């Protein structure tokens, strides 16, 4: 299992632009927002936690179809399916690899982008924490969506349509944690709920993803 993780990490890094692309997209979205809503710092301050969350979410979404599509195309997925590894473990590791190479950089860069959006000082910590707790759910749910659209030629758009509604609870609680943190309020309940979703999804969704992958490999 570790071998698969290392392999995917190496592939992501060598793939030229791997996690850089997600970061660049995150930056672009963050930069575009003030152009869209106006530069008043009071307004930006209000919406900063939400924008950072949405930017991170969309950046995650972008790199999701690569998780499985590449292995599908060169036949590696067939071989992985016949290997001693359970398919559930394979999808879990793929989600983990996605999180490490795409989501984690976003989490770490978010405070820097927060500066651009006049994020209040109290907000920095909570943006990072909420993203760190919530992005695993995004990776796991995204892997499920990628599995559903694995064989399809233009699966990317359909995958977004399937995955975005599934992202709503995570986004709601994650952004709530970030917002409350920025306002200096207690974040306990949304944080608990966010963590609950992440753990629940990590524990259960790989089974659904593996089932879907098996169906698509038939």
């Amino acid at each position, binding site marked *: 299992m570790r071998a698969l993780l290392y392999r995917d990490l190496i592939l992501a890094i060598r793939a030229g632009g791997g996690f850089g692309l997600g970061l660049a997209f995150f930056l672009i979205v963050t930069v575009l927002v003030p152009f869209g809503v106006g530069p008043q710092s009071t307004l930006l301050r209000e919406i900063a936690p939400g924008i950072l969350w949405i930017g991170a979410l969309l950046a995650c979404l972008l790199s999701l179809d690569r998780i499985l599509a590449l292995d599908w195309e060169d036949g590696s997925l067939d071989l992985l399916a016949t290997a001693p590894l359970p398919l559930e473990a394979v999808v879990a590791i793929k989600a983990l690899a996605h999180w490490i190479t795409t989501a984690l950089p976003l989490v770490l860069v978010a405070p820097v982008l927060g500066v651009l959006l006049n994020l209040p000082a109290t907000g920095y910590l909570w943006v990072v924490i909420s993203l760190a707790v919530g992005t695993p759910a995004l990776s796991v749910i995204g892997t*499920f969506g990628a599995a559903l659209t694995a064989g399809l030629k233009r699966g990317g758009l*359909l995958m977004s349509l*399937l995955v975005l*509604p599934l992202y*709503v*609870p995570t986004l*709601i609680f994650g952004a709530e944690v970030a917002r409350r943190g920025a306002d200096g309020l207690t974040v306990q309940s949304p944080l608990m709920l966010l963590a609950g979703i992440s753990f629940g999804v990590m524990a259960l969704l790989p089974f*659904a993803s593996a089932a*879907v992958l098996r*169906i698509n490999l038939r």
Partner: protein
Amino acid sequence: MSLWEYANPVKFIRTTDKVLPWVWVLCAATLGTGLIWGFFFTPDDFRMGSTVKIIYIHVPSALMAINAWLMMLVASLIWIVRRHHVSALAARAAAPVGAVMTLIALVTGAFWGQPMWGTWWEWDPRLTSFLILFLFYLGYIALWEAIENDDTAADLTSILCLVGSVFAILSRYAVHFWNQGLHQGATFSLDKEENISDVFWYPAVLSMVGFGRLFVALGFFRTQTEIRARLTRALLAREGQM
């Protein structure tokens, strides 16, 4: 006689062919009566004026939007466990009906709310939940359309329905949290049930039953179409092989 007999496509079509005209008649009767009574023969509400009458469409369509998804969920489970094609095709047939019901609920909800709120849309928990439900419907329908192999499509969409249902429930609570959050009580509550007195109740019930029958009629009709389409595809494929 077991319900599972109707898992046979031919038997399903034959039986529904016989039953369908009656369902349409009943549907027209209840829905027609309900709506006409509700719109023309009940007094205006002293607070909300005549726009409240839109609840005769709004409430039943909202109910059907949810019921359609529940029916799809049950049908998906039946497909996963017993692999009856009729079940999978019934879920496929019901989805667009459910989606349209959701849309009707959203639009009529907006119409109802407009005089009260002054805007055409408010991110009220209920409307928002229905908007999310609409997106789930769209995704489900899109997945059916995207996959060529019928059996694979049935398998994938049924799993999507299962996972989606869990997330739909999760979203409902999340949305309530999101819009109530620190606020005590609902700011914009559409708790129509509490506002309805007897005078409004009967036509409302009739409308609900009417919409229910409409769903059943459309469901039967569209499932038949799906079955026929599937049969045609299978026959063409076999012909190609011979």
